[in-house]
């Protein structure tokens, strides 16, 4: 038996019990940390890496949107009386951003991973979280479409561009695979039990691999690394 109800607010979450609060809280605080890490590690530095004023200001808007996402998840955490500040960030934030090209490929691939996770939360049992992701997803979709469009433009930039983009793709895919968590995760089991999520980590990873692979191979004409949807950690 799994929980199939809907939880209207923080008071209802607490009434359901600490296990529910713990499950939904882990998902929310993970977003609190990782949205901030994304804005700090990737988006803000990209403003200085931008090749021209239009790109600079676009990056500025994107950085502030991602920072805003962090704050909106923080507000949800506060309502649940959770501290969202502690805990580790995802390993993808260990990726070292060194160029504008890195940034746009990252937006296309890593933000797509974020979209895959957020789309699943559009059906989560915790209604404040469901409402929040419905508001944030259009912005996340924009970040991905910007990254994809800018990556296509990169490829048109010279004979060396495909090889450079391919290297970035290879690196970023490797860094992003752990983004979805371990196969057989006890946390994910609890998320699914409580209706916070619906899929296993491997199923979410497989969807990202399919969508990212379609972009890299079908759209860009490059090679997508051979990656298994399982990840043991």
């Amino acid at each position, binding site marked *: 038996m799994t929980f199939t109800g809907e939880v209207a607010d923080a008071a209802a979450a607490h009434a359901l019990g600490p296990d529910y609060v713990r499950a939904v809280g882990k998902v929310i605080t993970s977003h609190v940390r990782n949205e901030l890490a994304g804005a700090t590690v990737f988006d803000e530095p990209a403003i200085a890496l931008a090749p021209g004023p*239009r790109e600079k*200001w*676009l990056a500025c*808007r994107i950085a502030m*949107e991602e920072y805003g996402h962090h704050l909106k998840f923080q507000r949800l955490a*506060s*309502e649940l009386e959770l501290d969202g500040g502690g805990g580790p960030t995802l390993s993808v934030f260990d990726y070292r951003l060194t160029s504008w090209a890195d940034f746009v490929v990252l937006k296309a691939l890593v933000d797509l991973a974020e979209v895959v996770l957020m789309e699943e939360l559009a059906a989560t049992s915790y209604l404040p979280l469901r409402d929040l992701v419905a508001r944030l997803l259009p912005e996340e979709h924009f970040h991905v479409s910007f990254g994809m469009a800018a990556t296509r433009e990169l490829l048109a930039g010279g004979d060396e561009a495909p090889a450079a983009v391919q290297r970035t793709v290879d690196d970023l895919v490797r860094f992003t695979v752990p983004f979805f968590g371990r196969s057989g995760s006890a946390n994910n089991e609890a998320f699914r039990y409580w209706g916070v999520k619906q899929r296993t980590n491997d199923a979410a990873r497989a969807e990202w691999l399919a969508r990212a692979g379609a972009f890299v191979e079908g759209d860009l004409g490059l090679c997508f690394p051979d990656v298994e949807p399982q990840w043991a950690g």
Partner: protein
Amino acid sequence: MSWHTVDAGGLDLATGRSPRPPGQPSPAAALAAAPVASWPVAVVDGDDDRRLGLAAALGPGGDRVEALFDALNVGSQAASPQIAGLEAADVAALARATPAGVVDLPLAIVDREGAVAAAARVDPAWLAAVDRQRAAGRQAVLAAGREGQLEAALHLGVLLATERFDPADDTDVDAHICSGARLWLLTGAVAAAMSGADPDPFAPWAQLVVTGWWPVGPSGGRLVVGAP
């Protein structure tokens, strides 16, 4: 001490409830921890009910930041730039006083499409000078040991302006460029105000930005300003 950022009704912006412990150790930390913004804001110490307005919470230059955010709030509510208090002559005078110094080129007020097109050809030397002014304001505040107050002011400015400059269409690239440029200028204006620079190099353009204009800069032999 247990500081909380509160809205006009006295509710904690972090929780939507009356402030209760634990709070933050300083007014600036409370402002920087607010996950949402409303206007006006204040900070209260939950231990002794002490209340500070934004200017006092931010310290030197805080009054200029408060005035800037107040104008941002008024400007975003105005139905037209004229209602926000700017006439054509004001726009022309303010536009020439760019953050990198006076630019005496023919003024071109254009629509957003024209502004985005002009943005691609902005004088790179002038843009680099604006970048240096942005950095100088920030460095001056940091050198004074006021990083916490600066981050609080920027945090609040980003919260207020990101929503007020929100592109109406989430797929519109030009709208995102326009919004990002205005956010870039506004955050530069916040740091300059906090630094106490006199004259404040960002103040004239900040007035344009908070009333809906997008001063783009020298581009193609013209000084380009995007109309609201």
